[in-house]
């Protein structure tokens, strides 16, 4: 069995894993499992007692909470959008693609305007020069 993230829990983890796999293949997969009568429950409790401490020490309990919050956030974003209406289903891409497209087109417009000014200025200078020479 692969190791536990906390080496001190390896022994209890292994007992539980072996029990679980046996139960899963012999009972659950054959439709003979019930939700109450689980022979691995006691082993699982021991294992969790050990693992809970390790998860706290390593700050993984906090990571788990964050992952749960993130889920809520994603649901709020994507489910919320789905409900808006199907005609706006492209919104997901819009927030990403449009700002950069917008920036590019503004940039292109600026460059264009710059050259336009140059040309206009160039021609005025030319006309002024030619008027002077004349």
């Amino acid at each position: 069995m692969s190791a536990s993230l906390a080496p001190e829990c390896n022994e209890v983890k292994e007992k539980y894993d072996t029990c679980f796999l046996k139960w899963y293949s012999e009972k659950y997969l054959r439709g003979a499992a019930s939700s109450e009568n689980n022979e691995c429950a006691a082993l699982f409790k021991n294992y969790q007692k050990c693992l809970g401490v390790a998860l706290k020490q390593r700050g993984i309990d906090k990571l788990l909470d964050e992952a749960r919050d993130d889920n809520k956030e994603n649901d709020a974003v994507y489910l919320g959008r789905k409900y808006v209406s199907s005609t706006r289903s492209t919104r997901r891409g819009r927030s990403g693609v449009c700002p950069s497209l917008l920036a590019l087109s503004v940039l292109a417009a600026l460059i264009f305007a710059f050259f336009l000014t140059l040309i206009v200025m160039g021609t005025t200078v030319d006309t002024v020069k030619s008027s002077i020479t004349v």
Partner: protein
Amino acid sequence: MVLTHTTNHTYTHPFPTVTLAYFLRYCSPHLNPFAKHVLSTDTISSHIDPDTGRLHTTRIHLKKSRLPPAVFKLLPVSITGGNEANKASYILETSVVDMREGWMSTESRNLNFVGVLSVIEKQVYTVPKQQETQPTAGTTDVETTVVFRSRLGDKIRGRLGAAPAQQEDGANSGGFFARLGARGIQRSIESLASSKTVDQLGKSREGMGIILERLRQSGVMGVLEVVRRARERSVENA
């Protein structure tokens, strides 16, 4: 920004065996040579829903980092959290098995580095339609969807609630070059990670294949015996 990758595969093994192989896949490097990057596996919850009879399981895996090295080079140490030795990531795996209806649905996501890159892999294992009458014979279909999302430079926390509106505000603040740069990096991280994951999906499939073959040859108790012997040997050597 989001990048999605979907693949389909059919295992030539019956559905119950495939679900068992799923739980066994990180069991031991002796069993699955493609699981050497998995450092540990822990179950944090497991219960049967009394109404539906579905088995819900949550596990945490510690894997050597799945962030490709190129991504690490791209980022400052303050974000990646340091050197090679630290490059391990916690993966949260949730799965639901419904033996009566013949499907298993799984989801894996990384717990750290989510600000740099979040990878969510979803798999749905099903008994093909024409075999529903005898689920113990035949094949199993699996659809894998991986979603890559980099939120580097985005405000992640504290915008629960009116999220869509605020997100667009956030995207429009700051100069465009800053924004363009952040988007560009996000996109490169996503595509780098995506091409690496496509390789890895092949390996994970091969790993499942090896376990399935072992299960076919010697059954679950045989497999557990192999694992037990391998462990005893490693204890003796140590």
